[in-house]
């Protein structure tokens, strides 16, 4: 307190002092926040909040899916099934192409022929 009554610096050092004080406060706050966000309590609360949000979202999705199905319309899950079906089809076609590629290469090698340009693997 005695210092408060002391002579104030004439230069514009005081705002700098405020900045330093502020920085110290923020550093301490950041450190506290970091410790808090690592604590078991925070992590458990985070998990609970996430579980609740996911459960709510899932219920909403189920409700909407039921609604559109009742109206004889496709839902997101139906579109997902189609995408999955296409993906598995693509996989099978790619595998088949790779097999054909390998067979053609083997035949060419057997006949002593060599392509000038290296062939690329299609499906990898």
């Amino acid at each position, binding site marked *: 307190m005695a*210092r*408060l009554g*002391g*002579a*104030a*610096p*004439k230069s*514009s*050092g*005081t*705002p*700098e*002092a*405020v900045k*330093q*004080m*502020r920085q110290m406060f*923020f550093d301490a*706050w*950041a450190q506290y*926040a*970091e410790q808090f*966000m*690592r604590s078991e309590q925070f*992590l*458990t609360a*985070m*998990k609970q909040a*996430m*579980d609740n949000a*996911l459960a709510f*979202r*899932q219920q909403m*999705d189920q409700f909407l899916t039921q609604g559109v199905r009742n109206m004889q319309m496709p839902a*997101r899950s139906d*579109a*997902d099934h189609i*995408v*999955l079906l296409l*993906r598995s089809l693509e996989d099978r076609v790619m595998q088949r192409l790779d097999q054909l590629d390998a067979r053609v290469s083997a035949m060419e090698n057997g006949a002593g022929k060599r392509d000038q340009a290296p062939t*690329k693997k299609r499906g*990898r």
Partner: protein
Amino acid sequence: MNATNATINPWLISPAEMNDMWQGFLRRVAMMPRVAGIAEKVRVGATPAEPIYREDKLRVLRYESDVEKQFRTPLLVVFALVNRPYILDLRPGKSVVRHFLSRGFDVYNVDWGVPADGDRHLDLHDYIEKYLAHAVDAVLDYTGTEQLNILGYCMGGTMSAMYTALHPEQVKNLIMLAAPVDWSDRDNLLSVWTNEKYFDVDRVIEVFGNMPAVWLQASFLMLKPVSNLIEKYFSFYENMEDEKFLEDFFAMETWLNDNIPVAGEMFRQFVKYCFQRNQLIQGELRVGRRRVDLKNVTCPVLTLTATNDHLVPCGQSLPFNEAVGSTDRKAINFAAGHIGMAVGSRANRELWPKVCDWLAERSEKI
């Protein structure tokens, strides 16, 4: 003594200084329309680029340059899936891409695009062995070369490491920028949050399909809440009269708020196999049917780590140099943050010229 008082005692504000602060506040209020104008006009992406390859939402961009090409081996930049790749070419003077272009490299960038709901099934195999492999093929075809250099940033670095391990014959040099490969050190906050005990990634993806951008953004913000939500705006207020600062600030904000969702299956596999089970460094990770063995990486490797990286601590990147089969390997630890490595003034002044030198020494000249 006065200096000490000034440091610890904020109450010594003279009326003149109070007046200065008040006038400064009024000046800043008066500047608001100009600030809004700068925010509207800010542009991201310093260098013009043309797509040379497209597949689904992926684009491979080639950067234009006036500098004569000095090196035959092209450079492909691979960024993470969680943000847009223009961070490496944010603004003039803050562009990693420009460093390489000005040294005569032919630079390409992988823009993964924004996954839609239908892309939720895209997985590690799709991204590494399909998209990245095709991007590499496209660059090799376009340049007529058999090998290329790869610069992988963050998650893009991890993916580049996987690709290089699977196709070592195509990669001449590999630069890993703040890229995690070993998650055994679980000390950083992101690793704590992604612990299986608290984060059920299967359920998140089952419910949401793709990992929502807003969740990702909120998580990244909360890793440093005081800095990201409070300190940044104090700094903004104090520098409101500096036009250059404002342009950089708004460019950075544009990028930070440009989060994109991550394809659900890819996110699930990355979190589960990398963050939670740490399979990559142990040689247990499989991409499709193939096992990723980092010992297969035999090209020269440069690992760049940031001292103050809160997302990817050095301990998650440095083990890469021990795990690879390369004999030519180097690590540079630079005093910066995760993003500062790409856009920081000091990194652009001191780090990237060194990286260009390293790559130039190992690239085939024309």
